[in-house]
């Protein structure tokens, strides 16, 4: 029995102590925050090294009674799905903190770093929790720090955006809370009730069809808002545009994944009938998100908003991959979550770097930057290509697997041969809007006032390089990652498509 996972949850909290002590000294604050997130990153990589590849079940499990009078446990563990998302989280947090320490944050630095460390607790916890109650606690814990990060350190319309973000998310998650309580009551008789995932999977045979229909809706709304799926995405562009760069990186890179992960971890295995009942809607909304996100991205005038809408399209691939309910689709969805984390995180980073120098975000105000920033242009170009799914970079692998899964999807209505090509159009559109954007921002005549702006600094490079390496590695040799994901994902798909249970519930 190790306490590795608990350590992962505790370290950011422990970092708060020196942070509060040295709160008046900005340099010390930066050092503490960077050290803490670096230790956390190292530890999460150590966890990845400890992970036995090829096993479907949860590993490094820790289980302590938390509220024994209610049967609620502190229960954490990782499987092939979460074991990659945790290092992704810690890496993106580290990069965010590193970037923020470079001068992008000009006031109340100690409070800013406090918010980031608290946010990290929530994000890491979400991917580790195996008790629904604990999951909910971490899910909500992500909310308040992000609310403060957008609201205090954000742009001019930050207050409107942050309230919209919180209220949307809260509306979904509170309905999920009702769903969680309903699951809790259905899990057994008084005294033997539980919210631990393995026990709930055993008990799910007794969940009636009606029950699954409504509870899946409650969970699905929460995750769909977080993800976000069309038509619940309207908070996302606002939040991204106003958030400080590091906030955007983490918001797009990690927070959105909590939605996709929630579907895979809880909604699919627990409510197979609910999944079947809502399947047509989910597939439809996914494809709509892919196409709508792409079309809306194409007409954006604001660079950051463009990247935000491209997130909507990319997350559409995630939900599509999840709900075609086969192995290729699922593996593709998890890879797409990772890829989107690295690539979109990087895109927001580059938009932020650019904005710090030019103080312009409107595409029309930019142009010709390639003339003065060769390094920036090269790296940004790579991430843009990865985002549009160029083979050899990571974006391609995830989207290809999702499309493969979609084509093999026999389900209602119309089948994969209808939805697959539609989704593939989204890939083409992505190339259109991303390359068009790249052309308008990087080439053409340059404004005179930009002439003397410096290229990327060493700190900015240090933030970008790890993401670049991962983008290439995941694109060239995805196999090791697929091997990690596959067994656990298989298990989830089997649980979600158990024909006996679906029939039983329907009866």
């Amino acid at each position, binding site marked *: 029995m190790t306490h590795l996972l608990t350590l992962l949850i505790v370290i950011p909290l422990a970092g708060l102590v020196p942070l509060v002590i040295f709160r008046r000294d900005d340099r010390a604050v930066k050092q503490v925050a960077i050290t803490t997130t670096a230790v956390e990153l190292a530890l999460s990589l150590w966890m990845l090294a400890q992970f036995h590849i090829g096993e479907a079940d949860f590993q490094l499990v820790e289980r302590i009674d938390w*509220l024994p009078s209610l049967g609620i446990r502190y229960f954490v563990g990782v499987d092939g799905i979460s074991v990659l998302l945790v290092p992704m989280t810690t890496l993106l947090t580290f990069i965010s903190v590193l970037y923020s320490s470079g001068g992008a944050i000009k006031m109340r630095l100690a409070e800013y770093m406090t918010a980031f460390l608290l946010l990290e607790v929530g994000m890491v916890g979400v991917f580790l929790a195996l008790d629904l109650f604990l999951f909910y606690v971490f899910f909500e814990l992500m909310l308040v720090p992000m609310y403060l990060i957008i609201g205090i350190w954000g742009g001019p319309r930050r207050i409107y955006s942050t309230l919209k973000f919180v209220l949307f998310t809260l509306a979904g998650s509170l309905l999920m809370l009702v769903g969680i309580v309903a699951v809790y009551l259905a899990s057994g008789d008084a005294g033997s009730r539980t919210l631990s995932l393995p026990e709930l999977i055993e008990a799910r045979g007794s969940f009636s069809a009606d029950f699954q229909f409504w509870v899946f809706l409650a969970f699905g709304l929460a995750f769909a808002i977080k993800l976000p799926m069309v038509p619940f995405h309207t908070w996302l562009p606002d939040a991204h545009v106003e958030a400080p760069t590091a906030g955007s990186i983490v918001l797009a890179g990690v927070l959105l994944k909590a939605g996709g992960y929630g579907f895979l971890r809880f909604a699919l295995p627990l409510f197979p009938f609910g999944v079947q009942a809502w399947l047509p809607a989910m597939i439809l909304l996914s494809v709509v998100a892919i196409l709508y996100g792409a079309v809306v991205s194409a007409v954006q005038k604001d660079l950051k908003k463009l990247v935000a809408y491209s997130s909507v399209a990319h997350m559409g691939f995630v939900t599509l991959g999840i709900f075609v309910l086969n192995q290729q689709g699922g593996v593709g969805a998890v890879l797409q979550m990772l890829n989107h984390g690295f690539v979109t995180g990087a895109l927001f980073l580059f938009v932020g770097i650019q904005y710090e120098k030019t103080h312009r975000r409107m595409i029309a105000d930019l142009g010709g930057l390639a003339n003065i920033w060769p390094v920036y242009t090269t790296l940004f170009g790579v991430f843009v290509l990865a985002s549009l799914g160029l083979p050899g970079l990571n974006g391609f692998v995830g989207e290809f697997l999702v499309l493969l899964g979609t084509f093999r999807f026999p389900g209602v209505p119309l089948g994969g041969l209808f939805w697959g090509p539609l989704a593939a159009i989204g890939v083409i559109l992505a190339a259109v809007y991303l390359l068009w954007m790249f052309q308008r921002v990087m080439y053409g005549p340059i404004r005179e006032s930009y002439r003397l702006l410096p290229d990327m600094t060493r700190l900015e490079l240090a933030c970008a390089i790890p993401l670049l390496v991962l983008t290439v590695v995941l694109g060239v040799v995805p196999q090791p990652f697929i091997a990690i994901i596959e067994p656990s994902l298989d298990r989830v798909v089997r649980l979600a498509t158990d024909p006996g249970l679906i029939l039983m519930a329907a009866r």
Partner: protein
Amino acid sequence: MTDVAAVYPEIIVTIVACLVLVGDTALGRRRATAALPAITVAGLALAIVATVTVVPLGHYFRGFVVVDAFTGFFRAVFLLLAIFATLVSPEYLERRRIPAGEYYATICFSTVGAMTIALSSDLITLFVGLELMTIPIYVLAGIQRGDRYSNEAALKYFLLGAFSSALLLYGFAWLYGVTRATDFAAIASYLVANGVASGPTIVALALVTVGLGFKAAVVPFHQWTPDAYEGAPTPATAFMSVGPKAAAFAAILRVLVGALGPLAVDWSIVIAVLAAVTMTAGNVVALAQGNTKRMLAYSSIAHTGYILAAVAASRAGVSAGAAVLFYLFAYGLMNLGAFACLLYVDLDGTRGASLDELNGFARREPLGALAFAVFLVSLTGIPPTIGFIAKFYVIQPVLDAGLAWLAVVIALNAVLAAFYYLRVVVRMYMYDPEGAVPRLVSPRLLSTSLGVASAAVVILGIVPNSLLEWAQRAAQPLVR
């Protein structure tokens, strides 16, 4: 003699109240300001020790008084709230020149009344307790004699309070007429034995529900609340919003769930609808408030709705009662705390804080703002705070009793509420202080007690287990 031993805590609090009154005149102004709160807190703490009761659980004073786990829980809650209310007051009282002796004595007398409600096993004891609890509160609301808003608050509260007491008493009379008993157990067994919904029983039930609804500020019987809360001096409001509400729910549990439990089929759906209306109306009106004190007044109405939802779910058994008790504890802590945070900005010439006065509060008073933010997050019901556990714990019996629609209404209301709670956080943290803001006094005692209370809100949100078990034990006597 054992009869007297059964009410030691109440006796102690009464003595404390008298001591405070005597001390006020005996000590002289200068020494009294420091000594009176100390005496009050020490006495109330002693009473808490005494609640670890020396007598065996059971009935005393020929069945007029009952000492059980329920009594113990509420005694402790009332005493803790009174201590908290005492600790946040001294600096404010001195600043506003409010007579301290009367103030602390009134709080103590009101607490005795509340404790008497928890003790009651008979309509008569309950009514005496209810009046003993409320009359000092009328005084408390109007204790700032020179201030006309304070007078208005006291008068409104008194008139409507007296009206509701009359209704309640009339209901008790009907109940006695029907059942020929004033003892809760006797009433319940009569109702079980003689079928249920006859005309007179329904009249009694309606009158009792309305009367208690007034006391707990259930919509549509809430009209006195905003004015009374807004007009009363802020520390008094803080106490009024929690002590009497908890006491009213103690009464509701004793009467509706205890004595009239056999009629639950008749009243539970009515209560469920009242709960939904109460929380929705409270939240919607709170949204429109520009004055923080008034906003918190409406928010306290909304919380009445959440608690009432658990009452409506009483057929779910112990978990419903336990949810009411736990929520009352959580609500007491966070709501008293939230009102007390307004004491920082409640300076001469202002009546509660307008939202603008809170702009940039986090810069001016970092710890006070942090405590306020914690209370507000807890009132919203976001983990890891006690408010979240309370909400989770309330939804559970509501669903268990088959009131899924009510659970959804609770969830949606929590989103509405989040909007106005977080708006205050926005003002405190995301706005800059405007122009010439009045210089803030920085009361040390207030800051300390708010710090302790906000820490408790978080700690009990992470390790609530012993409190949950205590609430479950305390709710046991309600189930037959």
